[in-house]
């Protein structure tokens, strides 16, 4: 027999756990399972409706030789984007965190200001800048850095450039948040113990902002994998990513099971690195950035 207090405690635990579990089930688990399930449904030809019964047609067609190239491109653009954003965000975060508090907010303002303009307008702005008659193309051609006939738009590198531009603030914010809490006296301690400034940076600062780094990586990597707008506007056929294929299957081919199959692939590609990161974070005990007496 459970005592009243124990029963009350169990009830308490349930009440606390239930809302997030319900939330996740309703808005994440069920929709994801529906997407997975639709992959195994037939399509009604001509209408784009989902038919009755179950079939492996879509599952087999995912072996289409076109897909590996697109999946590969999606992966490398996303990984490159994440790497570049992180590489730029770490020095930026370090630099801003070391400024006086007033200057910090001014610099953070500069990081956030692009958000005041619509995402689409900023992408079109890039299109204008990189256009064969635009200023960047003109300047580079004038400096003989590119062939005047070369096209800066509509390739995978342009997609990468604009993706880095778009995602960089999202990487700087968590890195800065971690760097701001970092106890910079630890760097002095490392210097005192014989480390060069660079060594102190790698041995003490980077581990100190590990949480911020992991967040930055996830926050950039996951949306990159699902990118649709940037490759659609900047990429052309040679810059296509998996998001574009999903859109194409949905709106052009009216083949929802096929789109679902690709989405399921993408979902798995996103979930696996996230689970990995969570495991990595949980393996190490949570720790404070500062010494306790600080």
């Amino acid at each position, binding site marked *: 027999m459970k005592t009243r207090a124990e029963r009350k405690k169990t009830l308490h635990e349930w009440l606390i756990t239930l809302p997030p579990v319900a939330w996740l089930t309703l808005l994440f688990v069920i929709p994801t399972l529906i997407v997975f399930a639709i992959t195994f449904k037939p399509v009604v030809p001509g209408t784009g409706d989902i038919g009755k019964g179950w079939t492996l047609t879509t599952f087999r067609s995912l072996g289409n030789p076109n897909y590996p190239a697109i999946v590969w491109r999606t992966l490398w653009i996303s990984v490159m984007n994440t790497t570049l954003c992180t590489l730029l965000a770490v020095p930026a975060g370090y630099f801003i965190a070391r400024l006086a508090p007033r200057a910090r907010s001014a610099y953070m303002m500069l990081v956030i200001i692009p958000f005041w303009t619509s995402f689409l307008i900023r992408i079109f702005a890039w299109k204008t800048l990189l256009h064969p008659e635009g200023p960047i193309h003109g300047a580079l051609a004038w400096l003989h850095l590119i062939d005047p006939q070369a096209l800066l738009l509509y390739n995978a590198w342009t997609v990468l450039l604009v993706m880095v531009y778009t995602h960089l603030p999202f990487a700087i914010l968590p890195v800065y948040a971690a760097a701001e809490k970092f*106890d910079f*006296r*630890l760097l*002095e*301690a*490392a*210097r*005192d*113990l*014989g*480390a*060069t400034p660079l*060594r102190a940076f790698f*041995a*003490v600062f980077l*581990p*100190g902002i*590990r949480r911020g780094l992991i967040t930055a990586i996830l926050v950039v990597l996951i949306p990159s994998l699902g990118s649709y707008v940037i490759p659609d506007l900047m990429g052309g056929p040679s810059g296509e990513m998996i998001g574009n294929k999903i859109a194409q299957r949905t709106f052009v081919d009216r083949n929802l099971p096929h789109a679902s199959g690709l989405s399921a692939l993408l979902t798995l590609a996103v979930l696996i690195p996230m689970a990995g990161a969570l495991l990595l974070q949980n393996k190490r*005990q949570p*720790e*404070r*950035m*500062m*010494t*306790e*007496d*600080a």
Partner: protein
Amino acid sequence: MAEFLAFEGISKNFGPVCAVDHVSFAVKQGEIFSLLGPSGCGKTTLLRILGGFEEPDGGRILLNGQDLADLPPNQRKVNTIFQNYALFPHLTVRQNIAFGLQIAKRPAREIRAEVDRMLKLIQMTDQAHKKPHLISGGQKQRVAIARALILKPQILLLDEPLAALDLKLRQRMLIELDQIHDTVGITFIYVTHDQGESMSLSDHIAVMNKGRIEQIGTPSEIYEAPRSSFVAAFIGDTNILEGQVMEIYPQNNYCKLQLDGFPSTVLCYNDNNIKAGTTVYLSVRPEKFHVALEKPETKLHPEHNCVPGKVEDMVYMGAHTKFWVRVGDYRLAITQQHRRFLLDEAAIKWNDPVWVYWHGDDGFMLERYNESDEKINDPTVESAATASKAN
């Protein structure tokens, strides 16, 4: 003769603020040297200059005759215990201690042996696997010491190392620090605002104020013969009485002082050869005064001063009792170890007329006096308001 460590005219400004103002002093090899002063007096800046974290605007530091100016912190044979220990939170105790040797790329076996030796020295062998957030303040401090000592520095710099600890632990760590110093025998430079810490630990103390050194001496020199009112007031409590030297007795080097608003002239030993007619400030420590209900005729020597007064306040402090006694225009702070020396001696109560007496050797005369200095540690400012009153 070349000194072990010499500061020569070191200056440092932060914008318009002069943190360190032409400071010169020398430290002997193997001693514990304290830099003592209130916050903002420049002591930490001086330590950071020695550690290589700040560049002086002027002057130089010589270690064994070698100018340290161009050596970055990682090349100085000087290690620091930071105020909050600055242990690396992502490394275990063992990894923290090993850090310096790993940077120096020493062989793994040697590192392991050295770290084991250090863990034994600080008695933390069984805590080696823990991360810093799982150990106590005192243990953190010991790890910080081990982490610095493993590099065998010529000088260990300690920046308020006990400030973050509670009183009991502070007293224990003070003894431990002293023992570690005896074991390793290297020079310690100890920065603190706590006069008790520096008194009990140091061979020499430099008392600093407003970027300058007020006095350098052994703890007893600093306490017994302070050279300025700042030192007198900062190191322990004191009473400062203003007056003039009236007469000097060359046979025993005592002098007679006329204090303004004091009931009688007083005798004082004149060890600074102050001339008759000079305006001086007589400083007498609270514990040098004695209070008695009856005039202690039999106990008095010719060099004793004895004046009548009235008890205005008294606070029982356990180990001793504090009295505030009105004598003439002054309110003297007096501490006496017990209210009653003998059981048959009557207890001193509020408003009791009493006799205050002290030996002429127990006062010291200062020629310089800054009104603002005294307030730092004026026993009359630290009034009975916060302490519980005795009945």
